[in-house]
């Protein structure tokens, strides 16, 4: 089965940026289909952009430099990388990921929480990828951390009350074809994507379920859930 990868990176000198490229490298054999990366070039840190560009090009990614704008990741995905992907392929599975946490200094509480959040999602979507039943057509999306929360989740769902928190998920290409998307509807439209193409019963979850997570930016919540589910807290990427 073809496995494609689309990633989005905000090229700052920030650990979350290295996580994206290091996982792209670690799983380069897994991604045997189309590989596309959108990069936001940050002028004072152009050397980071150059290095990320070089690495992704060597890994076989089609790299597109984009401007940062109000629609954020959703705009880059729906207006740039997804149309390009659909020009090149009409089958297989797409894995989506992006650099997460560049807004936060790694030593801040939010930065630590986002880092752990990202580690958990990479662990359950790539390190344990062999556990996903990709051949089972009952499932349209695959990921980790499906959550149901009346308050927090609302902006991320736009319909079904679930999401793969953090925009690290697998989705079938056939469910992205011939479908109208309106990313301007919400800055969280990308986060809502799994819920837009499949019902919660068609979503395969691997890993902890954060039913009662008030906010993803709480380090304590992630540590508590991580320990509960035996997640290896120590990050071996950074």
């Amino acid at each position, binding site marked *: 089965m073809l496995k494609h990868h689309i990633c989005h990176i*905000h090229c700052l*000198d*920030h650990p979350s940026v290295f996580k994206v*490229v290091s996982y792209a490298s670690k799983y380069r054999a897994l991604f045997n289909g189309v590989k596309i990366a959108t990069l936001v070039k940050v002028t004072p840190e152009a050397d980071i952009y150059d290095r990320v560009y070089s*690495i992704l090009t060597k890994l076989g990614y089609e790299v597109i430099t984009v401007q940062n704008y109000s629609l954020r990741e959703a705009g880059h995905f729906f207006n740039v990388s997804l149309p390009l992907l659909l020009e090149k392929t009409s089958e297989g599975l797409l894995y989506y990921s992006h650099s997460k946490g560049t807004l936060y200094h790694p030593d801040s509480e939010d930065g630590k929480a986002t880092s752990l959040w990202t580690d958990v999602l990479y662990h359950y979507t790539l390190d344990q990828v062999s556990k996903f039943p990709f051949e089972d057509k009952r499932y349209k999306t695959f990921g980790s951390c499906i959550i149901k929360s009346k308050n927090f989740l609302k902006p991320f769902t736009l319909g079904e009350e679930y999401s793969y928190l953090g925009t690290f998920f697998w989705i079938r290409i056939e469910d992205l074809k011939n479908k109208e998307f309106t990313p301007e509807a919400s800055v969280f439209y990308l986060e809502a994507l799994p819920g837009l193409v499949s019902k919660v019963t068609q979503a395969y979850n691997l890993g902890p379920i954060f039913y009662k997570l008030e906010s993803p930016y709480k380090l304590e919540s992630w540590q508590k859930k991580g320990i509960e589910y035996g997640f290896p807290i120590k990050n071996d990427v950074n």
Partner: protein
Amino acid sequence: MDFQSKMMLIEIARRQYITFENEFREYLATGNSFNGAYNHFTLDDIEAHKEKSDLYNQLLAWEIKHASTRDSSPIRLTTHSIVKNLEKLDGELS
């Protein structure tokens, strides 16, 4: 060091290091006098706050900068820089 000299050093440190100033105020808030605080804090305490204060200022500057824009970041990370990791990975792929 005599008491007068120590007091002057502490007053200078309070102006220089925000984290020390906060700790000094907290000590006073628990009912201690200024003289008690001058006795309580040591030169080693001041030394420790040089690093703490640098980190505090770095975090503060990062948050102020990133609260308004995601397009630029003149504040380069030193403790968590990914430059060497990127160079290493890029070299391995050559």
